[in-house]
């Protein structure tokens, strides 16, 4: 088996045992990126020299007898919304074209400390706003399963890079589903940790009460290893949880659901869901039952209002966060001809530098926070948030985890929803509740839809700081499905 097809855990083991060098592993992945990324457009920036230098350093440290972590020497694709001082950081926006941050994000720093080799930065919907990566100012990313379709979003470059074997691991951020939805539609694993479990320091902010960094991988154990590598308390993020990281790696190795209570969310299904998605979901539920889990139906009535509440709360926070792009201290400046005022330059720069979806959300948030509308919109949405948290609390009294399809449909064609915001927003229908309540949730592959042969994801939701349960159930599902399929789902993808 070639190096690019190996798991991250196996690559880490081979490098640590010095059976293969980190430089060889890095070069194999750089070759793959050079071979396929013209078709995929997963990367906005590839750092060839930097990648090889990082890999050489890992080899030198191992040669000197240093003990490094389980992922030392493993390549990773890094979402271009995390600050990296040695690479451009654009957030997929023209307003930050060529910007180089003067500091590293905490997630970036921890990847480096763990000896992970950062190949480059991946494409995303501008400022992580979108579900298709079509909102990137640098062109869309293509789904490796079908190049005419979207790879999900906003972390679509990261999902495509991993499913096209350009990297065994990648980072993402999940504000309304931006890790789980791209993972589902590209046939890989994507995890949204508990809010506050992974640091937001140096992550370009979209909606601060929702933004959560998390891992992508081709299997559950690799995702857990990466989760553990960059998570944990960070004094630089005031909303970071000061507690131990849940035992995610042990849980992924446990891979057993005997005796667990699993709830099927009654509200997620029926009209608007693709039949092939529902068929695979029901199969996954039957599989869990056959593995010894006790399955019950659970009602979460307020989930129906999660989408409208999210599209008030997230734009409100976005309109405030993106006020920092004022053309004064960094980024683009347009129209400064000596006659215009700072305010005029600001408005011209923001109009030129932001794409349509970002403008829509800034204005929507500005509207929802305006006096006269605040109580009816933002205030009401915050109450819905309370109701959703109460629904989760009641559900987790009855069951250990909740399950649903990750997305209502498989990957849709590029262009289909590009100028229909409401249709685009529906892609996050099932993922948003866990952002509003801050609990952990993962997406794992559960088969291909009959209609189009495209991947379907199973979402597993666990309580706040119950991240290990996501990995335990996810690994059990993965193990049972892989023995049924004769290998990972991704092996069924067409060759690129």
């Amino acid at each position, binding site marked *: 088996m070639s190096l690019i097809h190996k798991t991250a855990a196996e690559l880490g083991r081979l490098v640590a045992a010095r059976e293969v060098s980190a430089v060889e592993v890095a070069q194999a992945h750089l070759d793959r990126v050079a071979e396929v990324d013209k078709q995929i457009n997963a990367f906005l920036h590839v750092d060839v020299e930097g990648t090889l230098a990082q890999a050489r350093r890992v080899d030198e440290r191992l040669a000197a007898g240093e003990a490094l972590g389980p992922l030392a020497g493993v390549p990773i694709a890094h979402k271009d919304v995390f600050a990296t001082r040695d690479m451009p950081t654009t957030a997929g926006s023209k307003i930050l074209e060529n910007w*180089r941050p*003067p*500091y590293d994000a905490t997630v970036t720093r921890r990847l480096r400390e763990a000896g992970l080799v950062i190949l480059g930065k991946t494409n995303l919907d501008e400022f992580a706003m979108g579900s298709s990566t079509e909102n990137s100012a640098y062109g869309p990313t293509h789904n490796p399963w079908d190049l005419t379709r979207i790879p999900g979003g906003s972390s679509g470059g990261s999902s495509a890079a991993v499913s096209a074997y350009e990297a065994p691991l990648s980072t993402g951020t999940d504000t309304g589903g931006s890790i789980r939805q791209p993972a589902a539609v590209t046939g890989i694993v994507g995890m949204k940790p508990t*809010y*506050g479990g992974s640091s937001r320091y140096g992550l370009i902010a979209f909606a601060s*009460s929702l933004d959560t960094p998390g891992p992508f991988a081709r299997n559950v154990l690799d995702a857990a290893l990466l989760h553990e590598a960059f998570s944990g308390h960070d*004094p630089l993020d*005031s*909303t970071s*949880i000061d507690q131990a990281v849940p035992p995610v790696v042990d849980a992924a190795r446990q891979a057993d659901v005997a005796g667990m209570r699993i709830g099927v969310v009654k509200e997620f299904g029926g009209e608007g869901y693709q039949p092939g998605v529902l068929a695979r979901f029901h199969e996954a539920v039957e599989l869990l039952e056959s593995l010894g889990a006790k399955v019950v139906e659970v009602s979460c009535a307020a989930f129906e*209002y999660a989408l*409208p*509440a999210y*599209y*008030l709360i997230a734009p409100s926070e976005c309109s405030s966060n993106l*006020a920092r792009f*004022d*053309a*004064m*201290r*960094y*980024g*683009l*400046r347009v129209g*400064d001809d000596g006659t215009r*005022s*700072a*305010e005029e*330059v*600001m*408005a*011209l720069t*923001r*109009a030129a530098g*932001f794409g*349509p979806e970002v*403008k*829509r959300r*800034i*204005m*929507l948030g*500005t*509207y929802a926070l305006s006096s006269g509308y605040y109580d*009816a*919109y933002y*205030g*009401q949405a*915050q*109450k*819905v*948030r*309370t*109701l959703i*948290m109460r629904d989760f609390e009641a559900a987790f009294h009855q069951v250990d985890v909740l399950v649903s399809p990750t997305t209502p449909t498989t990957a849709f064609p590029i262009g289909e929803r590009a100028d229909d*915001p*409401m249709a685009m927003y529906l892609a996050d229908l099932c993922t948003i509740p866990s952002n*509003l*309540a*801050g609990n952990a949730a993962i997406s794992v592959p559960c088969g291909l839809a009959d209609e189009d042969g495209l991947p379907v994801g199973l979402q597993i939701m666990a309580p*706040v700081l119950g991240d290990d349960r996501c990995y335990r159930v996810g690994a059990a599902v993965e193990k049972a499905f892989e023995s049924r399929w004769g290998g990972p789902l991704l092996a069924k993808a067409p060759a690129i």
Partner: protein
Amino acid sequence: MSAITRDEVAHLARLSRLALADDELDHFAAQLDQIVGAVARVAEVAADDIPPSSHALPLTNVFRPDEVRPCLTPEEALSGAPAVEDDRFRVPRILGEEA
């Protein structure tokens, strides 16, 4: 009935410091009207006795120890600036001619 008119979008764009073109105003007015119409459903469920939640975690007043620590140098802080003069950010005029 339309919730958001073209004039209202022009007002929102001004508040948001976005110099939008006329055709953009028309386009956004129709879309924002549709979105606001859809999200207004939040009013159906949330009663007066439900407390609002701004956040998923109950955290208040998180402070770090008040200790001096290293920070960016002027060169680092100015490294991304569109214009620099005398170790400072150079910006367009912020006051009118009369001021």
